[in-house]
């Protein structure tokens, strides 16, 4: 990989060394690179500025807003299919009657959108792009044009996915895991155009994140501020780096699989077709070899966000920084050896389940370690329950339930019963909702003053927090119970199953659906607060939370080039809060 990075660096015309980030020739960063070359110091046209920019902050915003828009699509999909589950056959307001075909397409869209087009772009691409150069004290990514290309590919992938709803036969409905033969043959899935388009969108999206990942890793390795040693890098940056490496190392097999599947779909090859000597289970291995590390690809950045927020608002040094780092690396490494727990009952050699059961349960150790460390960090703190802090603490509280319920599924014997039930759905939503939403809300409310130079309204932030958290739990606790009672996944009408219509079960489904509606409507509070505060919020100073990391040591919002007074020099680690030798309870990394 290093050779790729070097080649691209030369190809891009950005010579750099360990201390000189791109655009180094102009320390103020104006017109240093990319599209800005042509404009010099003049303010570029707004279209160029916002849509053709190579500035990492603008690209971060592009990813963020695209991710937020896609979250609306994913949210609408879940609203429609949950309404169908609670009130089978009803005409859903704003949608109409839900057919079985619609139901499958909506379920598939919800899953793929929320993971690939919301969690990944918001947590890794948006925050990685926005935060990495600011937190390591440089003026931009080392490959700014690669960065722009990354977003453009991502945007195209999103457009392709949305377009697939309007083609003949509709959007793909074979679940986000796209198991062949169902996904491979139009005669089975009945979406002759939707299925290849879905696959194409996913593959494009992976290409976008590969470019982003290369950029993140190279930037952090080469462009750290003078004096910033490896152990001075903030945890969230480390987490994004580890996640990017995991992503890049795991996605190869899946892209290969996607190409084979696309050949199966379009030119009739038989990689996954048993009638032609292929094997459908091969896809599952390729998919989950990527799919499980992917869980940690999104988990680790979320963990990183929580580390930043809880240290700042408890005024505490992070407990055992190095342990967190090592466990994150350990989690990442181990995550390559757990994939077949998705396939215990898939027809793999049953002896394999024993090995994967062991590795899966062992991964609870590093993940538990991180949670313990965060709880330990609170000890002896001076905790301020601001909105971002509430979200960060809620992440720990909710993720714990997601973590422990994973044990049921990782334990092969218990998984025989729970596999493909709503218990699984509830489990991974207790991990993914904290990751994709709770941690994102923590991040957005925490970095909002930096991003836009204004505060969000704290009261409305707390109202949004409490209603969201309560309704979230009211959705998924019923789903645990339904799963334990045998509700299986991806069924659009349970009235066909007498054992699943026993007393109280439909009530639980209705409770989950109504709670979902509350959760979705509550997000309006957030959106209004977010966009209103962006223009009308109270002005924020440079370092409103009195935090240590470098992004707080430049203006809010940071100008193009980030550090107008020259790039900072780092003297200490990122979490020197309440240091006994210092009057103030914080000690910025660059303060002398």
């Amino acid at each position, binding site marked *: 990989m290093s050779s790729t990075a070097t080649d691209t660096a030369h190809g891009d015309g950005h010579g750099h060394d360990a201390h000189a980030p791109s655009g180094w020739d102009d320390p103020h960063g104006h017109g240093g690179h990319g599209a800005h070359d042509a404009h010099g110091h003049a303010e570029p046209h707004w279209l160029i500025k916002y849509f053709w920019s190579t500035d990492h902050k603008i690209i971060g915003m592009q990813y963020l807003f695209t991710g937020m828009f896609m979250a609306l699509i994913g949210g609408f999909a879940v609203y429609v299919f949950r309404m169908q589950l609670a009130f089978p056959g009803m005409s859903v307001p704003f949608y109409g009657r839900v057919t*079985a075909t619609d139901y499958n397409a909506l379920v598939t869209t919800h899953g793929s959108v929320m993971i690939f087009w919301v969690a990944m772009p918001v947590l890794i691409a948006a925050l990685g792009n926005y935060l990495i150069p600011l937190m390591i004290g440089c003026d931009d990514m080392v490959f700014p044009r690669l960065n722009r290309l990354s977003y453009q590919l991502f945007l195209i992938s999103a457009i392709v996915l949305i377009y697939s709803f309007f083609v003949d036969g509709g959007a793909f409905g074979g679940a986000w895991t796209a198991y062949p*033969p169902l996904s491979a043959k139009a005669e089975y*899935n009945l979406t002759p155009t939707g299925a290849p388009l879905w696959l194409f969108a996913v593959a494009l999206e992976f290409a976008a994140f590969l470019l982003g990942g290369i950029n993140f890793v190279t930037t952090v390795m080469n462009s750290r501020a003078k004096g910033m040693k490896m152990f001075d890098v903030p945890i969230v940056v480390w987490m994004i780096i580890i996640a990017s490496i995991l992503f890049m190392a795991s996605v190869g097999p899946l892209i290969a699989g996607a190409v084979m599947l696309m050949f199966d779909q379009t030119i009739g090859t038989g990689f996954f077709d048993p009638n032609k000597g292929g094997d459908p289970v091969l896809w599952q291995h390729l998919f989950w070899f990527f799919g499980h590390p992917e869980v940690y690809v999104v988990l680790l950045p979320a963990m990183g966000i929580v580390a930043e927020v809880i240290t700042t608002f408890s005024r505490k040094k992070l407990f055992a920084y190095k342990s967190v780092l090592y466990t994150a690396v350990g989690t990442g490494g181990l995550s390559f050896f757990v994939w077949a727990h998705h396939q215990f*009952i898939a027809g793999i050699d049953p002896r394999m389940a024993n090995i994967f059961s062991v590795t899966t349960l062992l991964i609870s150790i590093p993940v538990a*370690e991180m949670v313990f460390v965060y709880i330990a960090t609170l000890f002896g703190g*001076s905790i301020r329950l601001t909105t971002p802090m509430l979200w960060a603490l809620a992440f720990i509280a909710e993720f714990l339930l997601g973590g422990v319920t994973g044990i049921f599924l990782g334990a092969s014997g218990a998984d025989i019963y729970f596999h493909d039930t709503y218990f699984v759905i509830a489990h991974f939503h207790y991990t993914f909702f904290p990751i994709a939403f709770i941690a994102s809300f923590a991040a957005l409310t925490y970095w909002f003053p930096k991003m836009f130079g204004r505060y969000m309204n704290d009261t409305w932030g707390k109202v949004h927090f409490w209603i969201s958290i309560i309704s979230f739990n009211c959705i998924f606790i019923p789903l645990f119970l339904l799963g334990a009672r*045998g509700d299986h996944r991806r069924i659009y009408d349970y009235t066909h199953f007498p054992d699943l219509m026993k007393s109280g079960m439909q009530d639980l489904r209705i409770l989950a659906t109504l709670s979902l509606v509350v959760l979705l409507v509550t997000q309006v509070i957030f959106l209004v607060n977010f966009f209103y505060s962006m223009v009308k919020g109270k002005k924020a100073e440079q370092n409103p939370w009195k935090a240590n990391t470098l992004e707080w040591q430049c203006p809010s919002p940071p100008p193009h080039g980030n550090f107008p007074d020259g790039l900072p020099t780092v003297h200490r680690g990122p979490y020197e809060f309440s240091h006994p030798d210092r009057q103030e309870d914080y000690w910025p990394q660059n303060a002398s």
Partner: protein
Amino acid sequence: MIDTYVPNGSSFAGDIDHVILVITAITGFWFFLAEAVLFYLIIKYGEQEGVRAKYVAGEDPKEKRWVAWPHYITLLFDIYIIFAAISVWQDVKQTMPQADETVRVIAQQWAWTFVHPGADGKLDTPDDIRVVDELHVVKGKTYHFELQSRDVLHSFSIPIFRLKQDIIPGRTVRGWFKPTLTGGYDIQCTEICGIGHGIMPARIIVETPEDHAAWVLALTPTQAAITPSEQPTQLGGMP
């Protein structure tokens, strides 16, 4: 725990329920303990005027043990859960006890065909009883099943048995169960198999030996009508 809502209907259902109970007890204890500590710390160390936070790096082994010890105990519990889970897994999935009878399950978009061996107790003989969406078995007999698919992946799931196994086109996937409870219960397809995935229910009817014999007898003549020459041997083979 599970059997409060879903009856426990096979020889191994109780073992699986037991593993689930063990995991619930262990993880439940840890979950509530961790939540209690979390909330305690949040309340105890709320911001107070004039009180400064402690400076703790967490690198000293004396401090680290607060994280290390819970950690070792977690590992210990993990090992216990692994042994419990694997022992059940081996009974259900890795061993095949001697069968009294074998049934064949053929899944397709979007129906089940169950091939019962009929009066002679053997599959692939003319008296086989093929029934759509209804599987008839006898309480207390050990069954082997052969799963086949005509098109895409399906999954054969009987919640009261705590049994689930994916069906892969191009292969015959085998397994076993021994019903312990009479009555009619749901069979589910638990792998998404296309637009009709939600309307692929079937029923398993677990009968006493007498009822089952009557059912077999009732269905045999129609079979026999197709192949009359086989009829005497079959009837002779009846218990």
